[in-house]
């Protein structure tokens, strides 16, 4: 890895999950853990005031789920979802997630995710990260997670090997 280390932030409502992830990330090169939160509201305040490159995000959380949180962010970081159960994998790939890790996270899976992150960081700001309709897509997703009526996503992510491409649906 080159340049300044990536700034990572961890969000999970279970403190032990954060503790373990922190430990797993300790050895990772070029990655600096800027902070963590068990309360999604606290995470939101932090993320909207500080610049973060990669967000490790749990999905099922009290008050605000992972998709809710993303929808309220001013700027979209790279996201690596961490979840206990494969229920939202498809939705997770509809947003700009790099990977979807299952808890308890295996070090090999985490290494794979970090490798992808390393590849995607250049160019630093992807076109889709500035896309104005992303927040809208995210709010649709979080609405669908709450069981409300949702419309079709405007784009889908397709993964070929370790590459992710986005397909516009219009």
């Amino acid at each position: 890895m080159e340049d300044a280390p990536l700034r990572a932030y961890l969000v999970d409502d279970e403190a032990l999950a954060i503790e373990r992830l922190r430990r797993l990330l300790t050895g990772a090169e070029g990655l600096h853990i800027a902070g963590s939160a068990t309360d999604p509201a606290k995470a939101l305040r932090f993320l909207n005031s500080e610049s973060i490159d990669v967000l490790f995000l749990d999905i099922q959380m009290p008050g605000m789920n992972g998709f809710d949180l993303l929808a309220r962010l001013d700027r979209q970081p790279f996201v690596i979802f961490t979840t206990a159960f494969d229920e939202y994998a498809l939705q997770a790939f509809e947003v700009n997630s790099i990977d979807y890790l299952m808890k308890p996270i295996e070090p090999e899976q985490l290494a794979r995710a970090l490798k992808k992150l390393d590849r995607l960081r250049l160019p630093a700001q992807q076109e889709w990260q500035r896309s104005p309709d992303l927040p809208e897509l995210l709010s649709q997703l979080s609405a669908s997670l709450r069981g409300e009526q949702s419309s079709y996503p405007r784009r889908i992510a397709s993964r070929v090997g370790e590459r992710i491409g986005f397909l516009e649906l219009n």
Partner: protein
Amino acid sequence: MISASNPPTADAPGYRKRYAYSILMVAGSIFAVTLAVTALLHSVGMSMKWSATGSHIIGSFVYSTLIALPSMFLLKWITLRFYSKSNRLLICMQISALLFTATAGCLLAGLIFILIGALSPAGYWQEFRSSFEFAVIITLLIGMSTTAYETMRERLQAATLELRTRQVEQERAYKLLAEARLSSLESRIHPHFLFNTLNSIAALIPRDPQLAEDTVGKLASLLRFSLGANHNGLVLLSQELKIVRDYLEIEQTRFGERLRYRIEIPNALLDVQVPPLALQSLVENAVKHVVSRRTEGASIEVRGTKENGRIRLEVADDGPGFSLDAITPEHGLGNLIARLDLLFGDRGQLDVTRENGLTVVRLAFPAEGKC
């Protein structure tokens, strides 16, 4: 002529049709029997003129119809009306009814014969005397044997029905218990619960190996109890409480300060019999719907009392509360309600109330166990 253990309802559809059908049957068979008897008399050489034979058939038909039909209706009415009375009383009433219909039938038949000119008014009492004895014997014989036959058939049917009902109920009970086990299995081995617990254990191993080891033990005992095949009936409250504690301790490891709980069950209650996974379902419900959904978590209180032979188990939480109306049968509490109903009938209750700002889910059932 039905002795019913359960009185059939007169307004049931098809009842009137069956009535008409039985009248036709009775009239038809009377006619057939009369015909057969006359043919028999002829064949054994009792010479009679054919005109006499004809009037004999008509005469017998009039007698039989006048006696048999009212007997049938009267017996049916008596049995339905007084089915709850003792058997002996019922038989006395049936015999009196038959005697009455035989007498009335003979008297009426005589009058009819006079009316159609087959009998002179002077011969009325002689005709009555000659036919009465025979009519009484035949009526009692046929009436009582039919009643006995019907009674036996009815009892057999009732017994078969009861056996079948019992089988169905037993099957239902097994099914519900299997469902409870499955749903408890699903929630304890609920992927979220299981994988998050494994994740907690993985996190604890380097920092607090002792706590990690304890948590593995609790998880194992929880899984074992949920998989357990040996609680078909009731379990001791002490056993159930161990599972409740294991579960709460695991969840507390996960949720930390968000889960606060207190268990206040008097020692005297530890030996009472309770439905397995009942208290557990209540606690789990509070954790799933209040603790994990709120950043501030919840305080849970588990309480138990025994009063007037009834056991009351309560789980209180400081969450927003819910209504039992919203509970579907697939819900963990829905299954619990159905199981309580099967185990205790009207004497088992589950209710949800708001008390001092707390949601209290209360389980009440008789202390002596199965009724």
